[in-house]
């Protein structure tokens, strides 16, 4: 696991037009300089939004990445839900650190319906 470098790649991609151009041309080459596992590389190249959320990518970083790929908002949210359903709870990062239990558990704790 190298969540730090997954997020660092996305941080640099999200704010740099030249890097976005390189990524658009050759995604695999764009991520080459970063120390990533094969699982992480595959998620970034596809891109697999659900897997990236499961790996622990901060939503504020992931949201901008999804926007870069023109992923519609409701589709973006659903991809994250599907990622949790398919792969399990968030592995690490801010959501795991503070106890991410999923949308149903959060809604129940607040006495609300799942959005």
């Amino acid at each position, binding site marked *: 696991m190298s969540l730090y470098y997954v997020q660092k790649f996305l941080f640099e991609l999200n704010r740099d037009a030249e890097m976005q151009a390189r990524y658009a041309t050759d995604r695999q080459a764009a991520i080459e300089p970063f120390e990533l596992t094969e699982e992480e590389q595959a998620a970034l190249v596809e891109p697999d939004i659900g897997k990236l959320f499961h790996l622990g990518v901060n939503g504020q970083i992931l949201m901008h990445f999804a926007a870069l790929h023109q992923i519609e908002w409701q589709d973006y949210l659903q991809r994250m839900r599907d990622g949790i359903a398919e792969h399990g709870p968030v592995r690490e990062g801010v959501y795991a650190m503070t106890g991410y239990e999923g949308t149903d558990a959060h809604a129940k*704790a607040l006495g609300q319906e799942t959005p």
Partner: protein
Amino acid sequence: MTLVYAGVCSHAPGITGRADQADPDVKDRFYAAFDQMAADIEASGAEAIIVIAAEHFANFFMNNMPSFAIGMADSYPGPIEDPAWLGIDKFSAPGDADLSRRIITEVMQTVDVSYAEEWKFDHGIAVPLHFLTPKFDTTIIPVNINCQGPPLTPITRAWAFGEALRRAVDSVPEKVAIVGTGGISHWPATPDSGKINEAWDQDFLDRWCRNDKAALLDYTDEQVYADAGQGGFEIRTFITVAAAAGGAKGTVHFCEPIPIFAVSCTVASYELSL
């Protein structure tokens, strides 16, 4: 006394990016509150606006994350997001490096801050400016508080930072407005997006309007996360504005949940003694 305006507002990207998906009635009333905020700032005579935002990894990352950062440039580009997605075209907002330097120098007397001569705006600043200075013709000084990458800036330090900002603003001859942007409860950019804890928001804003320091600092990150989501960490920006207001009392001009915008959309301000 050169602080001429102190207020807070929401900055969620959906406010501009998903405007067509919101209930038109509530959206229009929220936009009207934003327009009134713009008019109030203009009427204050503010020559510059300090925008205290919780940025979202547009400039700062966990390789070198400042607790506090202040921009020190003559211009700032934005937004970093896809313009069509955010609903805001690319722009360049004017800054004032000299004014920033004077303010930073004074803040540093009591609070350690980082300064940045490069700063790209994300929605945390771009969305408020879209309403407050739609022509991007007012001097902006961007400020960031780490609300994203734990360990986060302690809220007690956010208060101290607000006091330091007030002292710094009062030390310059220019008329300055301070606008905090962020929160309140929300779970932005996660599968929980759209969830809003309205009761928690109202309680927080009550503390904010009373400018009750003890009550505003009576939060832990664990409590905030459980009750208000990771977006609730952005109360730091509101708390800094409360401290900068120097005991003034506040008024909430608009606060209603708009789930497609992912937050209780808020506009509030303090009545400063000028």
